[in-house]
Every structure is written in C-alpha cells, then in structure tokens.
C-alpha cells in the first residue's frame, strides 16, 4: 500500500515538474481578444510572400501556433493594379475593428481611427505604438536604439540576432491604407511575388537608393514603433532597397508584416 502511494506520489511529482517545464518554455498565451499582431518572423524570401494568399497563410499559421487559429486572419498588404487585375487596398482586407493587441490592448477603434480618415483623427493618431505593436507571442518589435549595431543592416547577422532592429513592416500601402494606383512603379515587390533586387548594371552598385523608381523592385513599409524614416508612419513611411531577403535589412526590416482578424 505504502509502495503504491509512494509510486503515485513520485509519478505526480514527475508529471507536474514536466508540465511546468513545458509551460515555462512557452510565451504567455495571447489575450482572447487578440485580433491584431505583428508576425514574429518573416516568410524568409524577401518580398516574395507567395502573393496575398501566401501572406494570409503565414498569419494563419502563426496565429494557430499560439491558439488563435479560430479567427480569419488577413495580412495588412495592398496589391497594385496590373493589366487585368484591379488594385486591392490593405484597409479593405482587415474587417472593421476594434482591434486588440496580443495583450488585449486596443490599437484602434475602427478603420477611420486606424488610418486617420479625418484631419483631426490623423493629427491625433491611433494607439499602435511600441508597446502595443506586439507579435503573436507578445514580443515587442526591436527598433532603433534597442540594440544599435552597425551589422544590423546585414541579413547574415540579423537572422541570428532576434533582438536587432527589424521594425519595418511590409505594407505596400499609402498612409490612408490604400494601394498605389495608376503607376508602373513597384511598391509591393510585384504584388508580393518578387525577391529581386535592383540591377546594379542600371541602378548603380548600391542599387540606386531607396524607394520606388523605374526598374527598381521595392516595397513600401511602416513602423509599429512609429520611430524612423523622418516620420512616425505605421503603414507608409518609405520604401526598401530591393525585394531580396538580404535587401530588406539594409533599411532595418526583415519582411515581417501586420496581421488582422476580420472576425
């Protein structure tokens, strides 16, 4: 009898210890209201996300991994109008809000608050910031000053240092949340299918600079921490130096993006 009780106790201890260890390794579960997050990692092929569908799937996979797979997740990305293909606005893909962070803090009440649709709303701004622009795991996104290192422009370094600056979110979007239209210039890495860089032969050794220009693969980006680019835009601050995975870190991004649940 004593032997059995001892055995049971021992088993219980081992089991409890084990489950505690497992729990301790996990990040805190998302707040049940979470319907917004920043992807904790990139897809990994630069601006080629496999189109909107590929990006949505990435959102879904990450959400499911933290137990939030019951919602319908969409990436906050626009696509440009191309022959036989109308533009798609990021703001039209994300439902109507309100949206809450991984910790349950509201980032915006509705689309107008999120984007600043009236002049007063725009001047006030929304509640997306360094403390609310969290990944699905609840991590803050490393930005300027967090871990300043000259090597944080180098993908080979950045990919092994998760704490180095990576605050640029792909959006392909104008400040109002809409696509760039009526232009041949690239703001979306060819509608999120391209991992190409500017051709050094035509654009010069440094790729010809930053942002959209003829013959230059590029994506528009914004900052969840609202720091950088000479403005604080969360969705449309500036462009990239190319669309390859190695090009994105040159301006402090790695190809992460925003995910919103429409329900």
């Amino acid at each position, binding site marked *: 009898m004593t032997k059995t009780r001892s055995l049971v106790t021992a088993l219980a201890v081992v089991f409890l210890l084990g489950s505690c260890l497992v729990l*301790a390794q996990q990040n805190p579960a998302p707040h049940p209201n979470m319907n917004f997050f920043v992807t904790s990692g990139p897809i990994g092929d630069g601006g080629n996300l496999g189109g909107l569908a590929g990006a949505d799937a990435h959102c879904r996979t990450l959400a499911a991994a933290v137990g939030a797979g019951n919602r319908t997740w969409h990436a906050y990305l626009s696509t440009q109008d191309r022959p036989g293909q109308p533009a798609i606005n990021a703001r039209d893909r994300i439902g109507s809000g309100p949206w809450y962070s991984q910790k349950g803090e509201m980032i915006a009440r509705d689309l107008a608050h999120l984007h600043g649709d009236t002049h007063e709303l725009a001047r006030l701004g929304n509640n997306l910031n360094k403390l609310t622009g969290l990944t699905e795991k609840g991590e803050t996104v490393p930005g300027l000053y967090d871990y300043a290192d000259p090597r944080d422009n180098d993908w080979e370094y950045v990919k092994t240092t998760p704490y180095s600056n990576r605050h640029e979110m792909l959006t392909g979007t104008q400040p109002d949340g809409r696509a760039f239209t009526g232009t041949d210039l690239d703001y979306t890495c060819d509608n999120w299918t391209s991992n190409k860089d500017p051709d050094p032969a035509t654009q010069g050794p440094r790729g010809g600079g930053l942002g959209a220009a003829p013959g230059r693969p590029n994506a528009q980006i914004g900052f969840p921490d*609202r720091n950088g680019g*000479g403005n604080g835009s969360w969705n449309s601050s500036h462009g990239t130096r190319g669309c390859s995975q190695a090009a994105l870190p040159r301006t402090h991004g790695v190809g992460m993006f925003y995910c919103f649940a429409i329900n």
Partner: protein
Amino acid sequence: MTKLNAYGAVFCVSLLACCLALAQQGQPGAQPNQQGRGAPPADQGRGGGGRGGRGPGSHNQMSFFVTSVGMGKGGDLGGPAGADAHCQKLATVVGAGNKTWRAYLSTQARPGQAAVNARDRIGTGPWYNFGFAQLGQPQNAVISQNLGELHGDTLVQAQRGSNLFKQSARTEYGQVIRGVGDLPPVQHDILTGSQTDGRAFTDNADHTCNNWTSSGAGSAQVGHSDRIGNMNASWNSSHATTGCSQEALVSTGGAGLFYCFAVN
C-alpha cells in the same frame, strides 16, 4: 511515512521552482531588446562618447528640447514670458543661450487680450534635438522640417506624423523623457494649451491654466512626448489635466514640462 515526507518535500520544491520559472515569463523586460525602456533617462543621451558628448560647441545644432525640469508651480509658469525665460535659462546652462528660445504654449483670448497660437511662436524650422552628434544618426536629430510637417497641415502629413517621438523628444541634456512602460515617475504629459493643429482653443473653458498663471483651479491641454496614451499618439494635444497644481499634473503622468523651440 518518512519516505512520503521526502516525496512531499520534493513536491513542494518542484512546485516552487515551477512558480519561479513561470513568474519570469510574463515580464515585458525579459527580452534583451529593451534598452530604450525602463532605463533611467540618465543612462541615455548624457556623455554619449566622443562624438559630441558635453564638450564645447556640442549644442550648436540644438533648436528643440523638452525642459529637463518644470518650474515647480504646476500650471503657473509666470505666463508665456516666464516659460520663455525658463527655456532660455535651461538652454544657457548647456551653452545654447545664444539662440532665442520660446516655449511651445498657446494662450487663450481674454477680454482685451487676443489668443496666441503656440505654432506662431516657434519660428519656421527645421528644428534639431540634441541627439544629433551623440547618436551619429542625423536622420533622427530632425524633429521636423517645418511647421506643416510638425502639425500635419495636410492630411497626408497628419497621417504620417512628424519625427517627434520618444527617442527624439529629448531634454537639453539629451535625456529621454520617461514615458509609458518606463520606471515611474512617468513625465510624458507636456504642457501645450494647444489644439492638435498648434492653435489656441477658442471656447470659454480653460485649456491653459488661466494662460499659465494658475497653480490651482483650471486645466491645461497636454501632449505626450512618447506619443503613447489616451488612445492617440498626439505630441501636442492628447488630453486635459485634472487641475493646475503640481500634484494634479503629476497625478496623470506629468511634471509641468514643456517644449522649447529656438526661433533662430
């Protein structure tokens, strides 16, 4: 029985260990990327190494700062003139007294007295903070190129915002103001008395602690130097204070600090 006690002890110890392990999890500071948060302001900015530091001439470029200290009497700044003098004094201490400094404060219309808009007092820019030389990141030293960008005069400018944010809104010493998520006391409520467009309020309510002369009754409009709080990101017009005493300012995360701009 002794054996059972031993198991019990192991059980307790393991439970305790579990709790400790779990307790470490939820802390926001657990990641190694939090240099900008929680650290006392003195750790940042000051003595920023060889490129600038506190040597002679290091403040030549500075044309914007947040006052490192308030005037101590809540919303009573001795009127805009008293506030301007405070700006000038603090600038002089760090060797930037050769410029003409103005506090970013509006005053409201009163009988025989026209309103004054904060935006009309600060020159035309561009304005630079004292982060310029220290951090070697010139792009983040520019608070704003001009009045339009600073206040978002066009819709797109307003949607984008200016370059005034937590890490660029520094004191005359180059310190960052404690904001949401930092160790207390949070001091991010910055007196402005202004609307989001940088202009004075035109209603009859008090938004300026009686044109910066009251340390008791009244209220002042404040912005957030870290652009976090009250569900908006406004640097100059986020919410009203609950009163004009120093205690009232402190109670909502302020210290009676204000923005200073050089007009030349």
